[in-house]
């Protein structure tokens, strides 16, 4: 019952924010947007995920504003990935609400959430390994493509044209992540770092508004991590998307995040700017243990 009550509060806030959104000047930056409490792109309220007797996520609330890089950090097993799974529709959360561009997401199947503009990666590489690099990017554009079976069978001019557009878009992104020369290679045969870059490109061709990256730097060497850092910054700057990030590499997190949420044992521990988090005693305790 407590959940329902909180949800109503959430709903009301969203409505209020919508009103504010109209009033706010279009030029204000995202930092101001957060300060002014303007409509967030992603609004997660009191998210709860219960597996039998275990509450893996308990009352996590977070917001991502347009153009921001927001990180979720916490010790191993804190429930960060479960939060991701609930937001992206990989799991159905047992409680709480997820709003994306003011639309409720928490009861939608995963593919509808992706279509709404939220796309994610997983901790481990999950490419379609037996398909070629370019096919991986074409599949990710499936939702934007003409899917009419007959048009596809008879290869109408319109179908060919749109297929060419998909190819072009995929090619652009391959070039951007430096994988154009491998376009016809099987994805499973790429080197690990290349596979990670391909995953991000695959997300990006799906034209998301919010990119969710689950430990994108895991297993990368320092050079590759720096490239990744640049790539994420350029995505927010050039493509205008927001990024929600789970990461253990603290230098990466502190360097690129606009806002950080700390989760511990499934519960929210703290949130704030990288500076706030660095100085937060509770966070230091959770990471290093009591002294």
């Amino acid at each position, binding site marked *: 019952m407590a959940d329902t009550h909180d949800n109503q509060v959430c709903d009301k806030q969203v409505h209020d924010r919508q009103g504010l959104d109209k009033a706010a000047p279009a030029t204000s930056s995202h930092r101001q947007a957060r300060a002014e409490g303007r409509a967030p792109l992603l609004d997660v309220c009191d998210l709860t995920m219960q597996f039998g007797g275990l509450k893996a996520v308990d009352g996590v609330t977070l917001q991502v504003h347009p153009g921001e890089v927001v990180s979720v950090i916490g010790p191993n097993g804190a429930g960060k990935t479960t939060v991701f799974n609930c937001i*992206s*529709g*990989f799991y159905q959360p047992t409680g709480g609400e997820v709003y994306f561009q003011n639309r409720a997401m928490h009861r939608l*199947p*995963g*593919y509808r*959430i*992706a*279509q709404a503009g939220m*796309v*994610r990666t*997983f901790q481990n590489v*999950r490419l*379609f*390994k*037996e*398909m070629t690099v370019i*096919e991986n990017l*074409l*599949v*990710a554009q*499936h*939702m934007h*493509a*003409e*899917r009419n*079976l007959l048009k*596809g*069978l008879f290869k109408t001019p319109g179908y060919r044209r749109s*297929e060419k557009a998909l190819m072009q878009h995929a090619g652009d992104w391959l070039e951007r992540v430096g994988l154009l020369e491998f376009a016809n290679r099987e994805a499973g045969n790429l080197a690990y770092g290349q596979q990670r870059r391909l995953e991000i490109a*695959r*997300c990006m061709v*799906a034209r998301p508004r919010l990119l969710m990256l689950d430990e994108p730097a895991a297993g990368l060497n320092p050079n590759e991590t720096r490239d990744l850092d640049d790539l994420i910054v350029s995505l927010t700057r050039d493509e205008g998307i927001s990024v929600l990030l789970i990461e253990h590499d603290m230098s990466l997190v502190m360097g690129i995040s606009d806002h950080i949420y700390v989760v511990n044992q499934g519960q929210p521990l703290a949130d704030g700017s990288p500076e706030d988090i660095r100085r937060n005693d509770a966070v230091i305790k959770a990471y290093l243990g009591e002294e």
Partner: protein
Amino acid sequence: MEDILYFLQQVINGLTIGSTYALIAIGYTMVYGIIGMINFAHGEIYMIGTYVTFIVIAALGMLGIANPFFLMAAALLVAVLVSCAYGFAVERVAYRPVRGSKRLIALISAIGMSIFLQNYMRLAQGSRDMAISSLIPGGWEFGLESFAVNLSYMQVIIFSVTLVCMLLLSSFISRSRLGRACRACSQDAGMARLLGINTDMIISMTFVIGAALAAVAGLLLGMYYGVVNPYIGFLAGLKAFTAAVLGGIGSIPGAMLGGLLLGVAEALTGGYLSTEYKDVVAFGLLILILLFRPSGILGKPEVEKI
């Protein structure tokens, strides 16, 4: 020389039956490829396809239409449409509600579906054999006076229709967008869904494609043998399943190859040993494959699943 001709005849007969096994096997292999489960009601879809063929041919025949090619085309169209509807319904009724639960539950659900369809057909059409006369009789004979190889027109039709179906399916899977989405789902359905692909729709489509091909097989074999009863789906389904496992379950080229191999193996057994041993050889092959190469001829070795 006669030995060679005799052998050739067996191979032709084997390829005929094998083509239809291959068509049915594709349904098993595609469904397995996507949801990792065996659709044990698939043989019944084939049986329904045969019945619809017979009914359409009989009905149009009563209207005085005698052109065999028109009859065949009409029967093909109706049989495919009806079977697709059944394939779609089987997935909705027997699979979707239990998807995500244990493998065994879906298996039992599918077997239940199979029993239901078999008995429903028995009630609706009677349990006795139904027969139609051969629409396209005759054929070519070539060889020696002492032994002539017989290649009937119907056999040629079976080869060519099967070939066309295989080519259509291959190009659909490898080149079309839906085919691409289909392959993506079979590799990682969870990821495909999070990239905006409606995996439920893709799964339905897989069942429908499998059902359509089973209906084609039903039409071809029905016209070849000229007999149908409500129980033909069971054995045909088992054989096609064997073919799918033989070729490597989950692999579409594997199903095609497995079907042809199984058909030829059966025909050679029938020709050189005794027709009674046909099934023994077919299922003996299944056991051998499961023992020595569980991933099949073209399948990739995989530890999980099955």
